[in-house]
């Protein structure tokens, strides 16, 4: 059966008529099950835990739990911190990706490997590492406090630092890939039109890699939103300043699993809505 089906699409111009396929069933018949089956299993694997949360969620008491000020407070803090962390990652990560993709320098391979360290490092370890550097007695933290009177741990800024640390590799890797895939001849064309290096980057390179940057930023934001280990270790946990949703979820789990489920569902719902709408807007704009 498969072999006879294979011959059909070769018929000339069939795809150019613009008419919907006369028998849509035939199309699905061509989908190779060797891909389809694992694909569906993969989807189930990713979606089922979410379904578990939704099934176990205490729906009757949900509205009342949601109205609790500490839930909204944690949600607001999560969204603000993840967004600011993403902005910071964009500011630092895009140039870093550019450096890795476009500038030959000794030890570039090593630097590229180092960039991925936060991915490999258990987040809690990342938090401790941040404390050792930016903590009150850390290498830089000490100086920050002495010079500016600034301490990062236990502040909202600390949450942002922790989230940015953990999330930045997602952005850098995505943007670097986009930069490597971009046709550099467009940059040459811009140079022949008198564009400085900076103008080339701003007006040609950046718009051309925009899809990669957006994808990286979305990953980065999602990772920051769910960040737990580095945040609680570096920034601590205090309502209103550093207790983001994942921290609230973890603490709720200690005493009241149902509340934890509610918080998780809220976090998921909000992030899915934001990511989906962002994606739609981005896709339709391009």
């Amino acid at each position, binding site marked *: 059966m498969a072999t006879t089906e294979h011959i059909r699409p070769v018929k000339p111009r069939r795809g150019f008529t613009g008419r919907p396929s006369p028998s849509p069933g035939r199309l699905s018949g061509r989908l190779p099950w060797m891909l389809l089956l694992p694909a569906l299993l993969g989807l189930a694997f990713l979606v089922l835990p979410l379904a578990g949360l939704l099934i176990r969620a205490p729906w009757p008491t949900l509205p009342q739990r949601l109205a609790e000020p500490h839930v909204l407070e944690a949600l607001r803090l999560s969204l603000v911190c993840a967004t600011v962390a993403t902005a910071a990652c964009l500011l630092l990560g895009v140039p870093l990706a550019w450096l890795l993709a476009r500038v030959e320098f000794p030890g570039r391979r090593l630097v590229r490997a180092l960039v991925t360290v936060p991915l490999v490092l258990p987040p809690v370890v990342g938090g401790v590492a941040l404390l050792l550097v930016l903590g009150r007695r850390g290498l830089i933290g000490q100086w920050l406090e002495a010079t500016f009177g600034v301490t990062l741990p236990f502040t909202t800024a600390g949450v942002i630092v922790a989230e940015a640390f953990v999330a930045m590799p997602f952005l850098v890797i995505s943007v670097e890939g986009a930069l490597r895939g971009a046709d550099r001849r467009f940059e040459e*064309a*811009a*140079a*022949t*039109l*008198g*564009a400085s290096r900076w103008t080339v980057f701003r007006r040609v390179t950046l718009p051309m890699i925009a899809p990669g940057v957006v994808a990286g930023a979305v990953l980065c934001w999602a990772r920051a939103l769910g960040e737990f280990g580095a945040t609680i270790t570096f920034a601590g946990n205090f309502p209103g300043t550093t207790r983001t949703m994942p921290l609230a979820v973890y603490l709720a789990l200690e005493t009241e699993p149902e509340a934890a489920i509610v918080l998780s569902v809220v976090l998921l719902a909000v992030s899915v809505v934001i990511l989906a709408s962002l994606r739609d807007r981005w896709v339709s704009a391009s």
Partner: protein
Amino acid sequence: MSLRARLVVTRPAFELDLTLEVAPGEVVALLGPNGAGKTTALRALAGLTAMTAAGRISLDGRALHTLPAEGRPIGVVFQDYLLFPHLTALDNVAFGPRCQGFSKTESRRVAAELLERVGLADRAAARPRELSGGQAQRVALARALAVRPRLLLLDEPLAALDAHTRLEIRSRLRRHLADFDGATVLVTHDPLDAMVLADRLIVIENGTVVQQGTPAEVARHPRTDYVARLVGLNLYRGVADGTRVRVGELPLSTSERLDGAVFVAFPPAAVALYRSRPDGSPRNLWQAVIGGVERHGDNVRVHLDGPVTAFADITPAALADLDLTPGLRVWASVKATETHAYPA
């Protein structure tokens, strides 16, 4: 001369070294086979490929080779145009003026004017992917001209077009180049493009200049096999003694009187073929073996091996009459008046 350049680029297994002089308003075509170094030369002029220390470029008396690409008063039309996909046609053209410090409004005004000039005012808002090949080519030209360059560089400007569009765009491009008062260097491997568009041809092979001159000179006096093939001539190197030239073992009679090393050229259509030795014995006659037969326009091109290799163009009717098949021995002749000899 507005452009004087010695372009020297050294790469592993490739060396480019050529001198180039272009007068204001003159169009020079760099012609050569693939890998000859044409595009490398163009990139060196544009500042996109680094030259070795010996390289020099001066434009209107100003050293250019010390400037980066963005500092050179040049306009480049790239082979596949490289229009910025995220900008409209108008903004593509306005890009250069913007980089030169003009306001957005002023840049767009200049761009609109140029699009008008290339006949694309109505496509100003289109994105590159919405443009046809010919339109994209014209936008690319407008974009290059928008920076008011003193040197215009075109890399295979017509190569990406289909045959029909090519004809139209070629004549349009010729008009625009005629209007341009700076120096123009264009790169092509197509002799027709070169002949139509350029005032002067520079033929490059293996990174060096092998011949240059006006299209008419080059077409009449090819000096390499590559050029001879391009212009459709049989070309031989020989030693002349008066009107007799020895090409290898074969003596040929020519109409010119020359002494010493010469080239002899004649068109394939001047070669006549016979199954048996013709009567009246024309002066230039030799026995050849048919190497192959192929269509060539309305005629048939016959490849001849023998004391010299040659092409002969005959009519399909003649082919049928002669019943030529590869391996067959035939007599070939050329009238002395059809040959053309010139000093090597």
